[in-house]
């Protein structure tokens, strides 16, 4: 804190300005210390950008806390340089984020001791360099000024010491002690749980999370009589059938699925005979042009394209999606079937019957054609297909799916199994019963927010209140933290030691990058304390659990992985009779209108609700920000007489009341073409009541109607509610208007006319009156984006936001069309309104060689670099916005207001020091992460590497943030003058085309046209 020098302490002649100063009263001290008069910072309005700014508003106390955190004796200049630390250079550390019962292996960039950027760990078998949106944005949670910072007893500040005394009073044998944790996927925590069970034999440990794949394990229990987890090898699969499973969503247990799947989206070299699918020959005349504007083929000059040399590619796979919501998987699908959630079960049974996996009559007559075609395709790809189902589907579906994979010979080929743990699904219900009957003396909740996200019929909040002692450990004082007697602040995974097992069982050490910012503890430390009665060090617990020697430990930390810990493959034999029995006993579910519960793409189960990056990341399908909606098809909306009135860039959505088993919630409607009829998808994670300033009052709470009997889906009553609700989205127009923007063709057409995308952009040769710049020498940066691989998951958007200090603007400003994302994912629908297809197109600055923005800037604030970058000189920009008007891609972003102005001191720590923070009135845009290019350049220069035609950089030495994190490897950046680089090779691909090529702007970013591989029998 600022110390005010009192007048009395001065030497020499005393000058004073007021009597208060002269007397130097505490009141005066206080007055000087306060920058603003009382109440001046309280002027806020409801739903607005200001609200966000308010969150970022500097809190003096917090600034003080962060300053106090550092012990004084450590603030010394290095007398000798510390090994590995070069001031101003960043360091990278491997760690992992425990999530959703799995782990994302990460590498975190640390700058002067601050973790600032999260990327995937290339060594990790699941991440392989990619990171999901949530993992990347989680760094913002670390610096959340609304984090829980202190121990609370009955809502009042307390201390860890006071808590220690209370915790020591727990019954020694664990009588009436219940521990409720999130999914335990940490070996250390599992070990401690075992110790606790032996120390307190009467204590019970329950795990609960709102979204788990418990039904999958239940299904394996039916089929195999054992808890087995399927592991998929998408690289080997020619045909993939996703049953109500958005497996391309990044927040699943494995990012590797997306990696492997997208590797198989690349078509085989065109000259090779089309033999990878039995049906491909038929497709030549059966498959229609995907878009009306694909005119008559006239490509004789392109006819025979040379095959790619020496590359044995198995060709493009085929994806079937059977789903209710329109998901990322549905967008990618070659054939997609919209079904009500309860109909998926019957579909699976019928498919199993058609494949001969189980016996019985087919139920769904109308899906005959689909079932037959699908069965035929699967039969043709025995051992080379994958059938997989999502966790919303009941256990019996998973059991049948296991049997189908076995029947098709996929088991052991594309699908293998590892041992897993079965969690009793009813455990939380039992716990609620015990709490209500008064059998629980002490409830210890380790993380999570069960009061908010537990099934509504358990009335878990009321149950917790009945426990004489309730303790909640959590990163924020959430709904559970408010009800619990004791709230304990939980450490972020970037500031506490831990370990975690990923989907395939590989163990990573969760390595902290910073001392806890506040007096927080981790779950393992709490359990360690309950065991030992004194506070353990997380580091020691984790190290002891790993049983590694120093060298092994160091290697594990360095690699972010304990080598060889992946779970061994288990051979399981699915029991046909047991599965058939389960099928015959399967209860009939569903109703006229069904509601299904989705974890929100951005907030998951609500734990990220206070993360502004994620709140402002558009939902991949609806493009809504700062809200969730009840999603339904246009037909269902018409039947329910609900509509959306578009307004500016937002919309006034009709509100509906969703009623399930007597519980009601009011939600605004979003009409999504391609959604299944008579089905409503509710996005969970919104409508949090006890939360920080970002997430407060955002959206409605879908958990308020989620019953324990229908965690996946349930039949519901929908009635129209009076009134509308204002929602905003980042994209309002969903048709390409017949323009050749996303070039798309069926695989069969591509095989005949590999240059179909280039034909669209053909025009008279344009010439320049002036001598054009020679770009044939030196490094010439360029990008190629494979539209066939992009899943539209947003992870590039968050990567860019994190790397480039992109501000969040809030709902009101997005409503005005002022969102700042440098990369956006344009989503277009094609086909008819009820059952369309959708495509994604990542759109960032195209770095045009003839950049229209550059010529119109009066102050030369945007100029071209010799390496082909369209540079921004922020401090030269006066903000005429002419460049943005003249940009045909509309990728320039303008700081209409000072979006950084009131950023919290704590939140400022997340800023990347390599990137200028832009002030108001300045234009900004993507620059291919020029700071990374410069860093690599400096490094190359320092190492004295020779600069050849290809430049001194190794291929893949550095990547743009979006490219680095893309799980689908859709974005490729590099030196287009280097014939070795991947980008220069991709630019020679038949599918490569320049968007708006006819404008002669010569974009450096080009796109690889999208292909679909539909089953001709379903055309």
């Amino acid at each position, binding site marked *: 804190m600022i110390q005010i020098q009192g007048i009395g302490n001065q030497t020499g002649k005393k000058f004073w300005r007021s009597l208060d100063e002269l007397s130097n009263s505490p009141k005066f001290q206080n007055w000087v210390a306060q920058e603003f008069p009382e109440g001046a910072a309280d002027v806020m309005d409801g739903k607005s950008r200001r609200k966000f700014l308010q969150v970022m508003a500097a809190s003096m106390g917090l600034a003080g806390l962060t300053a106090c955190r550092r012990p004084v004796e450590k603030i010394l200049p290095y007398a000798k340089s510390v090994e590995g630390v070069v001031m101003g250079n960043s360091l990278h550390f491997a760690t992992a984020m425990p999530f959703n019962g799995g782990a994302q292996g990460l590498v975190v960039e640390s700058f002067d001791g601050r973790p600032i950027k999260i990327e995937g760990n290339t060594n990790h078998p699941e991440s392989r360099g990619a990171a999901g949106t949530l993992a990347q944005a989680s760094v913002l949670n670390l610096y959340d000024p609304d984090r829980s910072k202190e121990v609370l007893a009955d809502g009042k500040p307390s201390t860890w010491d006071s808590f220690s005394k209370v915790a020591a009073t727990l019954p020694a044998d664990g009588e009436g002690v219940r521990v409720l944790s999130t999914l335990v996927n940490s070996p250390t925590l599992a070990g401690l749980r075992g110790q606790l069970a032996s120390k307190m034999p009467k204590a019970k440990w329950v795990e609960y999370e709102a979204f788990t794949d418990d039904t999958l394990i239940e299904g394996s229990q039916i089929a195999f009589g054992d808890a087995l987890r399927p592991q998929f090898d998408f690289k080997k699969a020619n045909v993939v059938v996703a049953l109500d499973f958005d497996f391309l969503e990044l927040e699943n247990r494995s990012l590797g699925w997306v990696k492997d799947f997208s590797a198989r989206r690349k078509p085989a070299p065109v000259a090779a005979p089309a033999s990878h699918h039995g049906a491909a020959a038929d497709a030549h005349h059966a498959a229609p042009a995907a878009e009306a504007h694909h005119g008559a083929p006239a490509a004789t000059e392109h006819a025979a394209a040379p095959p790619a040399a020496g590359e044995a590619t198995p060709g493009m796979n085929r994806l079937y999606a059977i789903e209710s919501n329109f998901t990322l998987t549905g967008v990618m699908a070659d054939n997609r079937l919209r079904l009500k959630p309860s109909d998926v079960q019957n579909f699976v049974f019928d498919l199993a019957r058609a494949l001969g996996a189980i016996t019985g009559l087919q139920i769904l007559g109308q899906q005959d054609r689909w079932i037959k075609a699908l069965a035929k395709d699967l039969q043709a790809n025995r051992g080379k297909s994958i059938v997989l189902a999502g966790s919303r589907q009941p256990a019996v579906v998973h059991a049948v799916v296991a049997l189908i994979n076995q029947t098709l010979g996929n088991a052991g080929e594309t699908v293998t199994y590892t041992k897993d743990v079965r969690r009793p699904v009813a455990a939380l219900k039992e716990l609620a019963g015990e709490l209500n009957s008064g059998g629980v003396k002490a409830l210890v909740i380790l993380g999570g927010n069960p009061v908010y996200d537990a099934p509504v019929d358990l009335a878990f909040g009321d149950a917790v209140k009945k426990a004489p002692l309730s303790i909640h450990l959590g990163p924020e004082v959430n709904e559970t933290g408010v009800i619990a007697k004791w709230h304990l602040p939980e450490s972020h995974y970037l500031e506490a030691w831990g370990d975690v097992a990923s989907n395939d069982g590989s163990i990573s050490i969760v390595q902290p990058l910073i001392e806890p910012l506040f007096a927080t503890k981790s779950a393992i430390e709490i359990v360690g304390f309950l065991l030992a009665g004194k506070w353990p060090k997380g580091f020691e617990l984790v190290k002891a659990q790993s049983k590694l020697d120093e060298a092994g430990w160091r290697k594990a930390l360095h690699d972010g992985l304990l080598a060889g810990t992946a779970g061994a493959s288990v051979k399981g034999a699915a029991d046909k009779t047991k599965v058939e029995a389960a099928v015959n006993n399967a209860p009939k579910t569903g109703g006229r209108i069904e509601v299904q519960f989705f974890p929100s793409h951005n907030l998951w189960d609500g734990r990220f609700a206070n993360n502004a990056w994620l709140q402002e990341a558009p939902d991949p399908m609806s493009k809504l920000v700062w809200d969730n909606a009840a999603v339904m098809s246009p037909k269902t909306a018409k039947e329910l007489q609900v509509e959306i009135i578009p307004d500016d860039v937002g919309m006034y959505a009709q509100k509906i009341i969703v009623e399930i088993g007597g519980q009601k919630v009011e939600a605004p409607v979003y009409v999504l073409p391609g959604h299944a009829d008579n089905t409503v998808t509710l996005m969970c994670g919104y409508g949090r009541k006890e939360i920080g300033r970002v997430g407060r009052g955002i959206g409605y709470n879908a958990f308020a109607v989620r019953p324990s009997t229908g965690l996946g889906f349930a039949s519901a009553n929908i009635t129209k509610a009076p009134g509308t609700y204002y929602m905003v989205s980042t994209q309002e127009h969903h048709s390409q208007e017949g323009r050749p923007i996303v070039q798309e063709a069926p695989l069969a057409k591509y095989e005949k006319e590999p240059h179909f995308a280039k034909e669209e952009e053909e025009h008279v040769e344009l010439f320049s009156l002036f001598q054009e710049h020679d770009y044939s020498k030196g490094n010439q940066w360029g990008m190629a984006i494979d539209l066939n691989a992009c899943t539209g998951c947003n992870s590039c958007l968050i990567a860019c936001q994190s790397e480039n200090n992109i501000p969040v603007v809030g709902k009101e400003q997005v409503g005005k069309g*002022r969102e700042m994302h440098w990369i956006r994912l344009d989503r*277009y629908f094609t086909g008819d309104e009820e059952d369309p297809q959708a495509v994604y197109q990542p759109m960032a600055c195209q770095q045009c060689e003839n950049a229209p923005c550059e010529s119109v800037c*009066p102050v030369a604030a945007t100029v071209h670099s010799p390496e082909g970058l369209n540079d921004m000189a922020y401090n030269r920009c006066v903000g005429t916005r002419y460049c943005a008007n003249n940009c045909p891609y*509309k990728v320039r972003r303008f700081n209409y207001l000072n979006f950084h102005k009131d950023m919290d001191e704590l939140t400022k720590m997340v800023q990347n020091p390599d990137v200028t923070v832009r002030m108001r009135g300045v234009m900004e845009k993507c620059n291919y992460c020029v700071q990374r290019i410069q860093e690599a350049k400096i490094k190359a220069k320092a190492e004295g590497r020779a600069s050849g035609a290809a430049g001194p950089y190794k291929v893949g030495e550095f990547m743009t943030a979006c490219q680095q994190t893309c799980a689908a490897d859709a974005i490729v950046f590099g030196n287009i003058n280097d014939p070795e680089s991947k980008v220069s090779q991709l630019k020679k691909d038949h599918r490569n085309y320049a968007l708006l090529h006819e404008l002669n702007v010569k974009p450096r970013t080009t796109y690889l046209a999208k292909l679909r591989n539909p089953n001709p029998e379903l055309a």
Partner: protein
Amino acid sequence: MAELTHAQEMKERLTPSLTTGHPTYHDVTEAVSIIAEVKTHRNWYIALAISTSITGILGLMLAYLVATGVGVWGNNSPVGWGWDITNFVFWIGIGHAGTLISAILFLFRQKWRTSINRFAEAMTLFAVACAGIYPAVHVGRPWRAYWLFPIPNEFLNMWQNFRSPLLWDVFAVSTYATVSALFWYVGLIPDLATFRDRAKTKGKQIAYGIASLGWRGSATHWKNYEKSYMILAGLSTPLVLSVHTIVSFDFAVSILPGWHTTIFPPYFVAGAIFSGFAMVVTLMVIARWIYKVEHLVTMTHLENMNKVILATGTIVGYAYATEFFTAWYSGNPYESYVFFVSRATGPYAWAYWSMISCNVISPQFFWFKKLRTSLPFMFVISIVVNIGMWFERFVIIATSLHRDYLPASWGYFRPSFVDILTFFGTFGLFITLFVFFTRFLPIIAISEVKGMMAQTHHEEHFLDEAVAASEGKQPVGVAH
């Protein structure tokens, strides 16, 4: 009515009534000077109070804008320019009539310009003052707006980008403002001297004395005056065409469909004259009534201006049609979309059809002499035309921007209250300047009207003789 002889008809045609009631030179001096000499009327204070209050709103809005950021307006992505540039082009366009009347009509010896040129030139200056506000404050960092001028400064340390039409615009508008001000001032000098000579208070004598630069009305003075006036008229003439041509380059040089059009320069110039004349008619109808100068600003003046409005309005209508034809004929899908879908039927169709009805349809009524000489009718039409011309700029800017190449980036523009009040406030500034102008300066060019009268009288004399001769009568002397 008796049948007119050929000579009588000649007279009718050649001497349109540019003054009525045959005023003497003294009458003219009196009529104009008295406006500035009488005791300030109460109504003038009321007018000043209202207009300065509105200007005050402008000041508040600009202060709020500069303090907070362009975000207080409705501008967004993709509509980077909204009401700011719309209003800029609107005001610049208004100004054009003044220069046209004073310079081009002067060079073409159109005598009817004399009674209205002073007023029209003042309008030019005041409109340019209003217009000039926008480019300065529409930038994101107005305190750096001076970087648009090639002034050596320690921050930029380099030349501006001379390829940018916005920079051409800076030069064009600043040149235009300078030359217009000079031209206006030079024309004022003899009249200021008249005011000086009639001034009864010391303050006025000094003020007008300084402003009239020692004008004594000697033959040498008149010779130099006529020459410099001619030179300035010559300088202004290309500016009439160049300023709006260059303003149109802001759009035409871009690659945006709806902007990227070669027809823009003539189309913008015609539109500017169209709107400028309409504004002169609006102001003149009011001013000649308030200041009782109907005998100097006659129906002939107004009718001539209405004819110009009709002519330029038709040119503008033709330009609209040409845009559609080009969009269709080019086969460019983006261009066709802008005109046939976005403008004609899109979310801004209301603005587009307002523009068409105001600009193309409403001036056509001026084909009828009865309507073009009706004061109430021309007053309404002149206002309608200016509304239409404002919409034209809005349609060009906002509808082209809100839907361009990639549908995913499409948006919409809606003005904020700051947009609306700022525009409202510029009218306050415009009127305030006029209120001062009418109070302290000769609103009609006294010396020019007198010069025109002398000439007319000689012509009349000659014609009277001719008429008399044809009727076999002795010429009747004209009362001087």
